[in-house]
């Protein structure tokens, strides 16, 4: 894997009325409601971490389906996961207002590279399902579910980053998204692999309008 592979970052704003609009700032993982003119001002955009991102008119949610949710694992034994993975999830959660999401994504990619090397992987395979048979959608979903069974308060933010970690470690590109339930400030984060969201506790990504996207190559 090349460390120089791209991370393409896009953002948009969602108007709530004729004057005010919602913008997500990945620097402090917050959403802002302010006059449109202020929201588009370059100094503001740099301050909230959007200085290097591309503004799009509208960001379409690439997710076509959710592969698994919590109900799928009802009654099934919970998979065993390594302690470091649980620690990573908790670290992702604790870092959200301190480490900008773009930086967290790059760190996740770095960790994924280490995992890839540990597995003895070479260049990523061509197709999604052959990238790494041991990390297919089922495995990713089962792993994320198992990690969340061991934490006190499961949350979408660390879930998205963990999903990205597992995807990238299997040589698969993914997309991180943050959306808002406009006009509220309720946010949600999710990670999409080839149009599929591997695991959500309950399918809810679709009600959140994407404000920010980061495409991450392995």
């Amino acid at each position, binding site marked *: 894997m090349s460390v120089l592979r791209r991370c393409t970052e896009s953002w948009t704003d969602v108007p709530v*009325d004729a004057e005010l609009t919602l913008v997500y700032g990945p620097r402090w993982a917050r959403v802002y409601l302010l006059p449109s003119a202020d929201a588009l001002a370059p100094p503001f955009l740099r301050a909230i971490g959007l200085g290097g991102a591309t503004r799009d008119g509208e960001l379409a949610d690439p997710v076509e389906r*959710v592969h698994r949710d919590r109900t799928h694992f*009802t*009654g099934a034994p919970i998979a065993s996961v390594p302690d470091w993975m649980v620690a990573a999830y908790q670290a992702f959660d604790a870092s959200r207002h301190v480490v900008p999401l773009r930086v967290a994504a790059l760190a996740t990619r770095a960790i994924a590279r280490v995992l890839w090397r540990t597995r003895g992987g070479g260049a990523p395979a061509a197709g999604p399902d052959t990238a790494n048979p041991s990390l297919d959608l089922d495995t990713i979903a089962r792993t994320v579910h198992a990690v969340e069974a061991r934490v006190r308060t499961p949350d979408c933010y660390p879930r998205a980053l963990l999903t990205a970690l597992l995807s990238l470690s299997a040589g698969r590109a993914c997309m991180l998204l943050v959306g808002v339930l406009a006009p509220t400030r309720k946010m949600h984060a999710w990670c999409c692999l080839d149009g599929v969201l591997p695991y959500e506790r309950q399918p809810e990504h*679709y*009600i959140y309008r994407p404000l920010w996207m980061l495409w991450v190559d392995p």
Partner: protein
Amino acid sequence: MTVPALPAVAGGGVAVVRDRAIEIRVRPAVALRTRPIAGGVAHYLSLHDAEIDARADTFWDGWPGLNAPYAWRDLELTDAVICVVGERACVARGAAASFPLVWSPRAPGLALSTVLPVKSGEPFTRAGLVATVAGACVHASYEPNGFPATPLAHWWRVRRGSALHFDGGRVVHEQVINPCAGRAWVPREVIAQNVRAALDAYGRSQRGGGCSLVEVSGGFDSSLAAAPAADGSRAAMHGISVHYPYYEFRFERLLQQATADSFGIARVEVDGTSMYPYSPAEAPARFDAPSVFVTGIRHAEIVARHAASLSAQRLYMGHGGDQTFATDLLAPEVLVTNPPARHPFSAHAWRVVRQALDDTRTSAWRDRWLGTFVYDAAQDVWVKETFGATVRTPFTDLAVFRAALAWSVWCRAHGTVPDKSILAEAAPDLIPASVRQRRGKVPYDGVWMRAYRAQADHIATAFEGVRDVLAHIGVDVNWLQRRARDLGAWQAKSDREVLAIYAIAHWLGAWGIQRVSDVAWSG
């Protein structure tokens, strides 16, 4: 015993049943069936006219007697029974009761009524009005059950899910009605069979019901409200859906149409932006007691008016589905943990609110297995009296509720959280494929924020119209108006106080009580 027909009292024809010193007033919307019991007489009351005979017969057939420990266990959640034996009376009210039931001591005797006599000249109580804030703040729109106070000083509410025993006009005993028939878990297949049997029984109870309207939301619950009832009556069933033009609702229209198509019913669509929460109704909406349901009154009116235009006898809704099959019924109801803000209340009013909050939190009726958090019936009497249709959902049927209880027991025993998979398993033919495969449930948070944007001025005006009375009961109108305007400006602030006191303001305005001097006060 005499059963005279008396002329209208307090704004509507009310039948009065009088037995010695016990008077029972029954509003026309409530059906009554009377039968003798040992030493006295018993009355079965229900809002469901077409079903009351079967309900009453089923209840009496299995009734163990007035003094038996589980005398009221098999009472349908929406109904009530009044027994009179000499100077003694017992009033049992179902946990999801769909009509008011209040009592007042008389000298001598007792008055029981399905109508709170708001405009009868009886004195009001400040504490009774303020206490309603507590219920609205911690468990939204369910009729308060933690305390029996009403806005009238000498009238008390018979709690839902309770049996009150009177002697000579005094309460001598209050009993919690537990509809739970047992806690041992049964196999999942048996639960599915019981769910199906209960839904089939519901369907049979709806046969021959004439024209009906179903509010098609595209979810499990409204599908199960309609499908069993539609069998054999499909030609007489119509659909109505509400649509919002917002991002999170973008899949709903197709889903609702697919659901209606699967039932083979015609469906009309109404623009949700014409009926935001807090939108006032065109028809007068006078509830017996303040209820935050009035924030949805315009929606209820549009749907009910459409039912009336079709001469529909029944209005099917899926209310209670989440509360029964997607909730752990073995746990107490989770109440909002942060209380309302102190600011809008005077010191005296705040003491009343705090006491009512404590009463609600420590209430013996907080356990979900009692059925007291299944259904908000605030609109039922108003819809029936104003538009002629009876609201109906299967999820308040005792058999359905007991099946849901069994589901909670099974889930607890297997370490899982209750969900609606059991409904899909029990009735796959009643739930359209499009519904079973739907993504999830759309929250209304965005709708409510837009409602405050659209209705902030109306809300402030509602408070202003009854400023004198609100000030008298210890509420700061200026604070409320500022908060309403903040919410209308998209500010992320709590709306709990605005919601609760709007219910009071609307109620006062609807009854024409705008000045303190409009009514008498007792405390």
